[in-house]
């Protein structure tokens, strides 16, 4: 038996990604995330892909520890490979993958060795849209729009006001860009290189990265400490 001092656990994350924002839209699911990888508070990596298609019907977005996300991708690749090896016409849908991830995350937390991530899993199978999330301690839920990290505080209020089930692809992207722009302004670990991905009945697409237009000339941005007594 390994003693506790010998065993290796993730006690704190090293390289982390920031928020993921995802919504249901008319034909499926849209997801957005930036491509930054922070080493503590240093923006160390600038081209980390955090949105990945899983099998035929699902899309995964991850924030948190990047290497743990890579480990999760290994689990999922094996899961999908084994599913395909049955070769019987059955396939795991987004609901099944989300539940699997919930079990993995909660199981690791119970070993006091959590995978340091917040995950978003979306997809569509047989016309049924699915969007859910699970975090490092196994908390999970489904919703019409979800976000991880600071996105929970900054993006979801916007989504609650402006989201509806019948958004077109263009409207959905515009809504996600609005969320990502707010995050870019207010989340210090966000970078201006974002990716959007879409999954519909036809399949998943992760679009090439691009930048958002920003405007930094607001007076509050220029001199943020005016009126904040005692700040530097």
């Amino acid at each position, binding site marked *: 038996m390994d003693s506790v001092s010998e065993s290796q656990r993730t006690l704190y994350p090293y390289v982390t990604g920031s928020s993921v924002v995802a919504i249901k839209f008319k034909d499926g699911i849209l997801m957005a995330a930036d491509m930054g990888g922070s080493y503590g508070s240093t923006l160390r990596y600038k081209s980390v892909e955090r949105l990945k298609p899983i099998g035929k019907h699902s899309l995964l977005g991850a924030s948190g520890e990047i290497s743990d996300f890579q480990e999760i991708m290994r689990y999922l690749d094996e899961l999908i490979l084994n599913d395909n090896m*049955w070769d*019987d*016409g*059955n396939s*795991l*849908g987004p*609901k*099944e993958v989300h*539940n*699997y991830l919930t*079990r993995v995350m909660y199981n690791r937390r119970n070993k006091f060795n959590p995978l340091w991530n917040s995950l978003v899993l979306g997809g569509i199978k*047989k016309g049924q849209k699915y969007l859910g999330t699970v975090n490092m301690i196994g908390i999970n839920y489904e919703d019409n729009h979800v976000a991880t990290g600071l996105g929970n505080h900054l993006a979801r209020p916007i989504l609650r006001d402006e989201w509806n089930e019948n958004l077109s692809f263009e409207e959905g992207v515009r809504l996600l860009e609005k969320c990502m722009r707010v995050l870019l302004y207010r989340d210090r670990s966000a970078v201006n290189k974002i990716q959007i991905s879409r999954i519909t009945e036809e399949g998943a697409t992760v679009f090439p990265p691009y930048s958002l237009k920003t405007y930094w000339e607001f007076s509050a941005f220029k001199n943020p400490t005016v009126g904040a007594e005692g700040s530097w």
Partner: protein
Amino acid sequence: MFRNQYDTDVTTWSPAGRLFQVEYAMEAVKQGSAAIGLRSKTHVVLACVNKANSELSSHQKKIFKVDDHIGVAIAGLTADGRVLSRYMRSECINYNYTYESPLPVGRLVVQLADKAQVCTQRSWKRPYGVGLLVAGLDESGAHLYYNCPSGNYFEYQAFAIGSRSQAAKTYLERRFNNFTASSREDLIKDALIATRESLQGEKLRSSVCTIAVVGVGEPFHILDQETVQQLIDTFEIVREEESAPAEPEVATEQDAAPDQAPGADQGGAENQGGAEPQGGSPMDI
């Protein structure tokens, strides 16, 4: 005592390319009382003949619910059937725990067949002496499978196993073309008639058969005795009214049954004697 020098061990081949112990296990399936399954697009019905061991005992349970979407009917060694049902139940529960969705029927059947296959290739094991009709519903529709002690499995529109099952099979073979579009009620009726075919001169009563149904919007369940008796009564009345066309049917079936039954027995005896296989490969079923 030994009629055959190649049948003392599951793993020993006969020069003719046969595994006698496995074939004997398949004989055990034929000795058990009959189990019948049939399927439409939306429903699967299982039926079985209940035979008590003695006047003083009750009969053994031959239909088991595995999960809300899967059930099995067994023929052969009931004890082996129970062990396999327990295995299937636990597989369903585990899958449901991990994925929160029902295990696809085809996958369970493959797992079950693989389990049976292992027993045909290990000197310290014995093959299961039970045949299972697996009825289930999943996202690809209604399914009926037959799992054999040899580790083979087949998907069927309708099938019957166990003693005197040939008569039921003959009935099903004549009718199966219409099953796909059958209503739930018609399917149950056909199951009851097929069950009657495999009875030994007994009258069809709810006490000698068990019926179970699984289908769209209907979790697998065994029909209670009163319901079955009511169903029997209704269609027996209908049958008496249509007695003219029904009569010749019964006659042909009775002719067919004695022909088939001894034939099968002789086949079994010849197999034990190690004779050349007649017709198809002996491992086919």
